[in-house]
């Protein structure tokens, strides 16, 4: 009996995992598979024409593609040579290929109706006002934050705020918590985040529940994600900007949660939390009305009673 249950359980697990996998990943292109025989692994094997022998070598870790992430990224159906030079198809790769200028995101996404709803041109406009562009100029490309190989539009598709937050913050941390990458665009050391945010109460909780860009961008209602990243001098430091009934988070992070609430997941949550977002502004409309009624009733009771007391004396 126990075995039967175990087998049924295993079968269910298998079916579930297969269906999940089939949803998330599509087969990679032939071209990508060709490159990934080497670039998808820690080691690669080559036939050395000089020695005539087969050699196994370590792949440069910066050139390894994480195939699991690649399979779930937006560009997963691409061939590597859609963006990289076709000359890469031969090995050994020619040294000067490294100097080849790569396509930028706007080369494909700009001025194309297919992508109009993503407003790439406006994003570029906003980005050019940002501290990243002002300090580093053209060398600060989209890919500094958005890894083309693995990029997922989490803010649009994710059903949980925490996933949106951690995915998004990982982008910032990939440089701001990594000296080597930080120094790609700056000669300075990256500031220690816990120190520069020492003023922020419940730091850990904030870092886990809101995105860096909540405070560090100029929120634009019409853009899904604001790209005008602000320096610390211009970032939000006032608690009430978020912790109020008119929280600026409604225009940023929580506009996605609205989508989530409407999608029907967690109906109870949607009803109770519909207009109540934050500590400090936990305004559940029904409770608010009830509290006003109770308050008025208490005052009226006291007033009425004292009127009787003075008139019936």
């Amino acid at each position, binding site marked *: 009996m126990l075995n039967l249950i175990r087998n049924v359980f295993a079968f269910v697990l298998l079916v579930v995992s297969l269906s999940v996998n089939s949803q998330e990943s599509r087969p990679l292109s032939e071209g990508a598979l060709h490159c990934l025989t080497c670039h998808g692994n820690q080691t690669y094997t080559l036939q050395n024409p000089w020695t005539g022998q087969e050699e196994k070598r370590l792949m440069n870790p910066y050139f390894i593609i994480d195939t699991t992430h690649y399979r779930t990224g937006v560009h997963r159906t691409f061939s590597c040579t859609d963006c990289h030079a076709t000359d890469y198809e031969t090995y050994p790769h020619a040294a000067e290929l490294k100097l080849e200028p790569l396509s930028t995101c706007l080369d494909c996404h700009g001025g194309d109706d297919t992508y109009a709803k993503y407003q790439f041109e406006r994003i570029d406009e906003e980005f050019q006002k940002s501290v990243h562009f002002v300090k580093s100029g053209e060398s600060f490309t989209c890919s500094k934050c958005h890894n083309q190989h693995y990029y997922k539009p989490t803010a649009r598709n994710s059903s949980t705020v925490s996933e949106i937050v951690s995915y998004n913050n990982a982008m910032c941390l990939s440089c701001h918590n990594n000296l080597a990458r930080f120094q790609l665009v700056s000669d300075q050391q990256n500031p220690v985040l816990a120190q520069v945010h020492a003023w922020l*109460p*419940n730091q*850990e*909780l904030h870092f886990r529940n809101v995105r860096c860009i909540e405070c560090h961008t100029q929120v634009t209602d019409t853009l899904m994600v604001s790209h005008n990243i602000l320096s610390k001098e211009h970032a939000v430091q*006032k*608690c*009430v900007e978020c*912790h*109020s*009934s008119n929280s600026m988070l409604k225009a940023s992070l929580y506009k996605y949660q609205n989508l989530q609430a409407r999608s029907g*997941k*967690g109906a*109870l*949550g949607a009803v*109770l*939390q519909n207009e*109540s977002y934050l*500590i*400090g*502004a*936990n*305004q*559940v409309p029904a*409770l608010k009305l009830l*509290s006003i009624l*109770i*308050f008025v009733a*208490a*005052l009226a*009771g*006291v007033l009425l*009673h*004292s009127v*009787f*007391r003075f008139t*019936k004396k």
Partner: protein
Amino acid sequence: MTTEKLYFYPVWLRVWHGFNALGILVLIVTGISMQWSIDSPLINFSLAVKLHNIAGVVVSIGYLLFFAGNLFTVNGKFYRVKPKGLGKRLVRQARYYLCGMFKNEEPPFPLSEKRKFNPLQKYSYILVMYLLMPLVVITGLALLFPELIIEEVYHLSGIFLTAVFHSALGFLISIFLIVHLYVASIGKNPLKNYRSIVTGWHEINH
């Protein structure tokens, strides 16, 4: 008519009551200001948060004092629940407040050395001090250390639930305060009870 003076409120109780009263007032004012997040020039948000935290800790420590006082001194006997005939006693007292006192009836439960509170008073104090206060202190402490709170309860944020519960409790305590302050003024001399809680002595007219 003779006037009897009873020593109702020992020093520790009056000290606790004083600190508690001040603390609760600060908590209510700052609590409301945080609830609506009104960044008024009178009290800005971060100051409200700071004051609320300090007053919360003071009131919590005070609560422990009150709890210990009632546990180890004779004062505790005024807070013992006696279920037999409870409903009837409450109704009688309520009837007196709503009706009898306007007809100059005698209070159904005159205060004496053995009875410091009338039934309505006693059970509302028990409710506030042994139910609402512990809950508001616990939820308040949890919000002071939010990383301790369960992250999600049926798709609802644990912090959100704790915060709503905490403010609902705070609201009920505020309503209690309004009624408490008003009912204290009932009597031949409206100021008499306020004086007693300062001096400790309660006057009873026979």
